[in-house]
């Protein structure tokens, strides 16, 4: 059963068109990667899904047309977006960030349990639970961003460049935790990642964008085997 389906999606920044008909399909519980060079439209595709950019085409989620909805309305339907640059709420404490993540939830009792789960997933946050998010290191902020998205208990997680600006060991740890999250929660994911090695550790299939169009789509295994992918994204 398909959870998310994009077909012929276009997007604009002001008068500038950035996406020229992107398609994407994510099955329930699946994980799909978006690869591509800078400016190919990866981030914009995520924004198109979460409603933070002007779009055309068709975007359906969980059987509903979500194109044209406001970001908060998209979130209500079960999409959590970890934006590029993390989007943590700098003046709020770590715990408060997590509570904001759980804003839409009605099951109050379960929230504190999920916070504990997040702290188990990212033990570094344990000591910083009362600190302001702005005072965290880049890696900790990234962990917080992912944890906050998880707190919404979404059906779909949009993950944008979670390794950006992090030391290799840190980004590895972050992806390690996300993989565990995926296994334990079964949340579907769309992953945008410059570092294809990291991406392939997390996704079942992927699509490659160039100047706002799909140029290649396939399973992770297929793509990993292709020369041009190797050369362009896998450093080999």
């Amino acid at each position, binding site marked *: 059963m398909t959870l998310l389906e994009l077909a012929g999606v276009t997007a604009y920044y002001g008068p500038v068109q950035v996406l020229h008909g992107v398609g994407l399909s994510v099955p329930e519980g699946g994980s799909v990667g978006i690869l591509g060079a800078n400016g190919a439209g990866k981030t914009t595709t995520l924004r198109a899904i*979460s409603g*933070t950019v002007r779009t055309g085409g068709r975007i359906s989620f969980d059987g509903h047309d979500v194109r044209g909805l*406001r*970001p*908060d309305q998209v*979130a*209500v339907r079960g999409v*959590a*977006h970890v*934006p590029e640059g993390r*989007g*943590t*709420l*700098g*003046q*709020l404490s770590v715990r*408060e960030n997590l*509570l*904001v*993540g759980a*804003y*839409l939830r009605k099951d109050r009792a379960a929230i504190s349990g999920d916070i504990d789960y997040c702290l188990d997933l990212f033990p570094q946050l344990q000591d910083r639970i009362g600190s*302001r998010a*702005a005072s965290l290191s880049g890696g900790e902020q990234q962990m917080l961003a992912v944890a*906050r*998205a998880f707190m*919404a208990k979404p059906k779909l997680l949009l993950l944008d460049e979670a390794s950006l600006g992090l030391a290799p060991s840190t980004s590895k740890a972050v992806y390690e935790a996300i993989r565990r999250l995926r296994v334990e929660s079964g949340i579907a994911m769309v992953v945008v990642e410059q570092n294809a090695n990291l991406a392939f550790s997390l996704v079942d299939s992927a699509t490659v964008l160039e100047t706002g169009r799909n140029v290649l789509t396939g399973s992770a295994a297929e793509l990993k085997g292709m020369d041009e992918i190797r050369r362009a994204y896998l450093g080999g």
Partner: protein
Amino acid sequence: MGTFIQLVVDGLATGSIYAALALAIVLVNQATGLINFAQGGMAVLSAYIAYAFTRLGLPLILAILIAVVVSFLIGAVIERFLIRRFEGGDPDTAVVVTIGLLALVTGICAVRWGYNNLAFPSLFPLTSVEILGAVVSVRSLATTVTIVAIMVALQVLFLRTKLGLALRAVADNPSSAALSGLPVGRLLMVGWGFAASLGAIAGVLVAPQLTLTPGMLDTALVYALAAVILGGLSSPIGCVVAASAIGVLENLAAVYVPLVGHDLKIAVPFVLIFVILVIRPQGLFGRKVVVRV
């Protein structure tokens, strides 16, 4: 000694006027990240609305309650149809918009009610009591108590409620807050509405003493801004403490520091701000903030 204590008490009473307005500024800043120069003007408009209802024969307390509710709506409408356009844009432009709003609101009050000083009835009697040899009017005392109560309520709102958390999240980063499903637009409207209601309370508290004129809170606004900066933009307690400190210290400096005198006492809060900010950039009680102004 008697004079000294009296000066302190006088300063606290004056400080409570600044504090009332400062709380509304803190609220709007916490909820939207903006500094609203029109806050004083809107509070004056609210006081005029209450005044108009008392003239219709309504009991004072009822008139005030109506004014508080109407002000909430006015605040929300101003956010939705005016400020919304400038949210997330250049903060300087947004501040200038509030400056224009101040002129507009002041002008509306002047056209509707004129520039005459109108006597506004007080909720509290004009009797006085003696504390530690100092005389303090019941009105000042009650004003201070009310302001402290509001301060506590605000502190609880911000730190203990889901709504407060959501307001702060939206002020911090609206686009990111939306990704967690927060209805940003509605929350901004609520924030402005609350601040306007609070301004209404501030307005009716100080109107009996200052008498109602369109520019009633113009001077107080400067002091309130000083108190807000000094106390830390994020802290209701901080700004009330700072407002009181400003009121007391400027009195003491005027009387006991010959160089200052009553003409230059307005410099006292600014010198204070300067010294404190150099030592503690986040203000007395605030957490380190970078503001969108």
